[in-house]
């Protein structure tokens, strides 16, 4: 890749934030389609934590996880020749 064809910063940021957002959304929906929060976290649910809180927290946790995965992908995609710089 020549310097001129460098990927813009916004594209890099989007490539990390956006796919992780989409996939964690889908994963969250599939997970809570099968399990209700009360089944997965019976004690927390009994102590009055709302379903909204379970969905939101799960989504944010998944987003963080997939975001790290995307970041690592970007990191490992760096041309190897640059490691010697």
């Amino acid at each position: 890749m020549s310097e001129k064809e460098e990927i813009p910063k916004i594209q890099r940021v989007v490539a990390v934030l956006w796919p992780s957002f989409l996939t964690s959304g889908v994963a969250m929906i599939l997970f809570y389609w099968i399990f209700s929060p009360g089944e997965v976290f019976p004690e927390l649910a009994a102590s009055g934590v709302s379903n909204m809180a379970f969905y939101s927290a799960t989504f944010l946790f998944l987003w963080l996880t997939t975001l790290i995965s995307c970041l690592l992908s970007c990191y490992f995609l760096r041309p190897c020749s640059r490691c010697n710089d």
Partner: protein
Amino acid sequence: MPEKANEPVKAGQDSLYAKREEIYPREVHGIFASWRVAMVFLTLGLYYILPWIHWGEGRQALLFDLPNRKFNIFMMTLWPQDLIYLSALLIISALGLFLFTSVGGRLWCGYACPQTVWTEVFLWIERKIEGGRPQRMKLSKSPWNFNKVMKKGGKHLVWIVFSLWTGFTFVGYFSPIRELAVDFINWDLGPWETFWIFFYAFATYGNAGWLREQVCIYMCPYARFQSVMFDDNTLIISYDEMRGNPRGARKRGKEKPADKGDCIDCGLCVQACPTGIDIRDGLQYQCIACAACIDACDDVMEKMDYPKGLIRYTTLNEVKGNGLHIFRPRVFIYSAILTGLVIAMAWSLVTRVPVGVDIARDRNILYREAPNGDLENVFTVKIMNQDDKAHSFVITIEGMPGAVLDLDESQTYVESGEIGDTLIRVRAAEDVIKERSTSITLIVTASDDEKLTDEEDTRFIAPADWFQK
């Protein structure tokens, strides 16, 4: 903004450290601009109004009630078990998009995509406060003074308020909006409602206010793969090179110079483009087919007394002089699959019985002898009541004449949206059992509505020596 305001921005090619060049789309008037405004009113009108509509007593017509794990869709209530319908709806939408794209190109992008319609509103606010394209460019270049602070600040303030309203409406699809409004006014929102209102507001403000065309270029998956749905007969926005070239400026009202085409190179098509491209360079993936350039060019052609349509909706085949071919195998195949799926889904929804039964055999005992000497099999019956009100269910047995049910309760009461468990014992006397394993059917019916019924097959097991006696 650089001196050459007509130079298109080479989106996607600017260097990592180069600043993105701000685009100041010129306002256009014309048939397509009117269509877009109409679509903004239709789509956003629906978005902001729908959650306020009630269907029946105190029931929000459209509510994806996540806290209670049920979806209200007008007269229907869908539960997590009905996710299949949501999947079917997504597949139908995707196929519909394929069909529209192969016929009409990126009509979705130009007129219906949330990114386009919200950007349109944000641009309208920007124009009302900062003025037209030249004034906006001048304001951006000018040093910071009172006027600039007031105008820029005012614009962002209106954007933020509008975004917050958008975020509030979004959360209103998931949490009853009227209660949410009361909580909002009293500032008594739950922490997560607050978080999501601000999150969605921030996303709207960022995407429609700041990122704009970059969302289409870098974030939109559809923009990346739409070209595979295109063929030579797909409607695209195209500049008629044969007619327009060679381009060049000329005096108005004079005879057209013999060495020039119809394009007067005014650059208005570029100035009008919300993604900052020059349509005269040919079809580009940044083009969202909003047709702003068509309106801009038609306006100029009219003033020059040239025929309209130098830039127009056309197909590659038509440009080559082969005419329009809307009906082609690709269109028929997409239409056939789409029609089939829509009919199947409609049929399935209309005939959907909102009750489900699941039978589990007692894990510990395959069979046992009842106190009266009969043979007994024990099952747990799970009844899913997907109706929007509670019912009492009656369980009956078929398939094994002489077999009787022994239940703790004659009816099983299940709340709306809940799953009720009940233990049942199926008993059969010695002379009734003909085989080691007999197929039986358990039928669950609501006591107040016999249409609410479902059945499930299972087996009655006897010991090998029992029926051979």
